[in-house]
């Protein structure tokens, strides 16, 4: 193994989106040797696609806002399945984290008195999202990237981690990766590893996620012994593009609705008024007049139903389309053209204007958009300690989308970017704390050899299936059987088919060389995709209720008993993607009385 490139670090961070960058900045600030390892070029991670904003109760637009209201909104949005402590830390710390970004060069839109402007979004009681037009994610990633570069953090770009290595006590010792541009392997020895690898959405056919979202972090964590929670909770964003087919799934920001856009069916009706769940009735407008007053003054009316949490809106759209009241291409209409001036639309939503004009030939200042649900985000993920982002594997930390618990069964828009910077920082601190007290671990040669061979196996097979065919079948299967509305028989069928796909994935073959070979790269992503897809299907089968991102046609109501448990998944034996995954319900952490009081006051 001596010929493999090797680097020793105090801390390596896998993934260079918002959470990874923020963690690396924190650890580097402690004077440690830190590396950032990412699958794409620096600055291209999925964070760049976040549009609407970053949620933080700064109270710049509504002074009544504070962390308790944000905490309450987040928990209610997640249907109380969230880890209360994560939701609390997130609500308390996100204002500081946003302000910190300004100190690193971010330029947010401003209020008249020069403070950071905040916009309305679904599920947030007050206008709370700091933003830059509809390209907030770009601002966040660029700011963090430029900060990281100024601190001279080592960056390994286009470098895919295939496995984590562990010692006899089960602690992580490092990672095995390969350089996509050369196909050569590289190993990292690390005292602490932060996973910040994002989501899993590429396993669905219609998704807002890029090729990178293959659940690598979820999978390598589980293969190293970590537990996953809530993997059935997948968010289908209500508004993805539906036409042309080639762009189906591309995100249309919730900011369109926050800024006045409304949803209509083929009869021109604002149908969301028909779908207000009891839980949200008291705070939702009853008429269009009332809803429309609210945009200018939140005390003059209650919230429009278009701004209910995403799971509610996505399900409603789905129902309208199924009832035959959809748009020509199988979505519904999102109309801002009739509600705001063309200048306003272009100024507030420049990327959306551009995206529809160029990709669909639709001028959103004149016509309604056609939109429908698209796979967007996984609330579930690696189980972590809220304060330190530590997983159950010593030395392994997880932050951002790859971590579970923060968002419960449904994430509110804007809570993702704030999650990244709050828990990215916390993971960086804890990873640094551990690294400062440890000797440099050494990697097991046999593990390295095994993982390298495993990754290269697709080249050694003379004949075998095309990895693209398998990916395609997986996406069709997840879309059809583990989509927005689920049912027992389809989930059971999905799990059977996933087992077959796993066997077939162990036999894919690729041609060409190792240099920048996307077919091979995909072949090495398939084990992660199949692992996380299995977790989602299993969780969806066992959670026999409807809650947030888990909707069961055969169990349409929330079950109070199931609302008290997380489904926790682990691998029972062996290592790697083909070994069995166990699933057990485990009780949620108990919220302290003083926080519980926030909810009780309201129900009085």
């Amino acid at each position, binding site marked *: 193994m001596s010929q493999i490139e090797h680097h020793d670090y105090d801390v390596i961070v896998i993934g260079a989106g918002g959470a990874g960058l923020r963690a690396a900045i924190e650890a580097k600030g402690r004077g440690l040797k830190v590396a950032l390892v990412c699958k794409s070029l620096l600055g*291209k991670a999925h964070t760049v696609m976040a549009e609407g904003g970053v949620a933080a109760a700064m109270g710049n637009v509504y002074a009544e806002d504070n962390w308790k209201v944000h905490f309450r909104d987040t928990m209610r949005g997640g249907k109380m399945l969230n880890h209360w402590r994560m939701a609390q830390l997130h609500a308390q710390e996100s204002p500081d984290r946003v302000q910190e970004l300004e100190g690193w060069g971010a330029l947010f839109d*401003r209020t008249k008195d020069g403070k950071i402007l905040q916009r309305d979004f679904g599920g947030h009681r007050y206008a709370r999202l700091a933003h830059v037009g509809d390209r907030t994610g770009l601002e966040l990633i660029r700011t963090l990237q430029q900060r990281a570069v100024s601190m001279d953090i080592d960056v390994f770009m286009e470098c895919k981690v295939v496995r984590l290595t562990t010692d006899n006590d089960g602690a992580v010792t490092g990672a095995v990766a390969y350089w996509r541009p050369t196909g050569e392997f590289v190993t990292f020895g690390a005292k602490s590893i932060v996973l910040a690898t994002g989501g899993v959405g590429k396993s669905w056919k219609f998704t807002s996620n*890029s090729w990178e979202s293959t659940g690598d972090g979820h999978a390598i964590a589980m293969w190293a012994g970590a537990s996953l929670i809530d993997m059935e909770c997948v968010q289908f964003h209500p508004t993805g593009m539906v036409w042309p087919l*080639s762009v189906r799934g591309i995100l249309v920001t919730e900011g369109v609705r926050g800024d006045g856009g409304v949803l209509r069916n083929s009869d021109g009706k604002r149908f969301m008024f028909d779908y207000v769940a009891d839980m949200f009735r008291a705070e939702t407008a009853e008429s269009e007049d009332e809803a429309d007053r609210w945009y200018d003054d939140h005390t003059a009316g209650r919230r429009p139903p278009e701004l209910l949490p995403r799971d509610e809106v996505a399900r409603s759209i789905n129902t309208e389309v199924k009832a035959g009241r959809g748009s020509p291409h199988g979505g519904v209409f999102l109309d801002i053209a009739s509600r705001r001036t063309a200048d306003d639309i272009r100024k507030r939503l420049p990327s959306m204007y551009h995206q529809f004009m160029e990709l669909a030939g639709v001028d959103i200042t004149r016509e309604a958009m056609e939109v429908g649900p698209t796979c967007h985000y996984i609330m579930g993920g690696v189980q972590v300690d809220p304060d330190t982002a530590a997983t159950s594997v010593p030395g392994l930390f997880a932050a951002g989308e790859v971590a579970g618990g923060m968002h419960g069964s449904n994430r509110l828009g804007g809570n993702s970017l704030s999650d990244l910077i709050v828990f990215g920082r916390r993971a960086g601190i804890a990873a640094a704390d551990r690294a400062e007290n440890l000797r440099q671990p050494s990697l097991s040669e046999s593990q390295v050899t095994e993982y390298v061979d495993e990754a290269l196996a697709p080249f050694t097979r003379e004949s075998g299936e095309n990895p693209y065919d398998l990916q395609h079948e997986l996406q069709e299967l997840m879309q059809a059987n583990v989509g927005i509305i689920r049912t027992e028989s389809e989930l059971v069928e999905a799990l059977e088919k996933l087992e077959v796909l796993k066997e077939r994935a162990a036999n894919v073959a690729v041609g060409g060389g190792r240099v*920048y070979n996307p077919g091979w790269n995909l072949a090495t992503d398939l084990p992660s995709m199949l692992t996380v897809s299995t977790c989602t299907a299993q969780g969806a089968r066992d959670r026999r209720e409807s809650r947030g991102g888990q909707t069961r046609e055969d169990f349409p109501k929330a079950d109070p008993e199931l609302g008290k448990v997380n489904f926790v998944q682990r691998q029972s034996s062996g290592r790697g993607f083909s070994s069995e995954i166990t699933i057990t319900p485990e009780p949620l952490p108990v919220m302290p009385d003083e926080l519980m009081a926030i909810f009780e006051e309201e129900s009085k």
Partner: protein
Amino acid sequence: MSDVVMHVWRGDADGGQFEEYTIPKQDGEVVLDVIHRIQATEAPDLACRWNCKAGKCGSCSAEINGKPRLLCMTRIDTLPEGETITVTPMRAFPVIRDLVTDVSFNYEQARKVPAFNPPPRPEGGYRMSQIDVERGQEFRKCIECFMCQDVCHVIRDHEENKSRYAGPRFFIRYAELEMHPLDTNDRRDLVREEMGLGMCNITKCCTEVCPEHIKITDNAIIPLKERVVDADYDPIAWLGRKIRRRTKRTAAEAKVQPD
């Protein structure tokens, strides 16, 4: 529907050739969709960078019929109908494989930019007016597709200039910092002496290819050139620098990284 005929350059640093692919046309597709279908069928090892597929990340830059374009934002039906579509890698950067180029030049330039350096945050946070942040916001729309670098004739066919020329992407970065309401560093000498701002002769090729429609030449490069000249030749400013305590640090001082 008819077919799309695409000539895709395939090869590596040692050379290559065009391969022809014929794929049935589909409604509304962009060039990247066709590349993906080629990968999924005939050529799984066809190398191409991409991420967001929505014009937001700037990964899939290449040259379509000789012009720098984002593959994900170029609809097939906007290209001349019935004609072969030629797709080649960006010319200004070394080829790694097929459509993927080595863009590390840009990441090296990024490391040379003296960091943003604001005054300490006042109680209650920084205050800035919308009109002041908008100048910088235009430049921060940059998605780092590097097509402005690719098209810039100073480096497109002049590898030798890369060591002394930052290129349009970084001129907008320097302009952004120069115009940032909070920044205290002064990078004007650096931009003039080491970043080769003077080598740009404002032909606006960069502005034309920018997928974010940033007015690179008019709003960044020309104002930057004016500020650099002012800094150098304005006798009052010169005197001011001599007798007043500077509010901005010079380029040499600014190169020291912040803590």
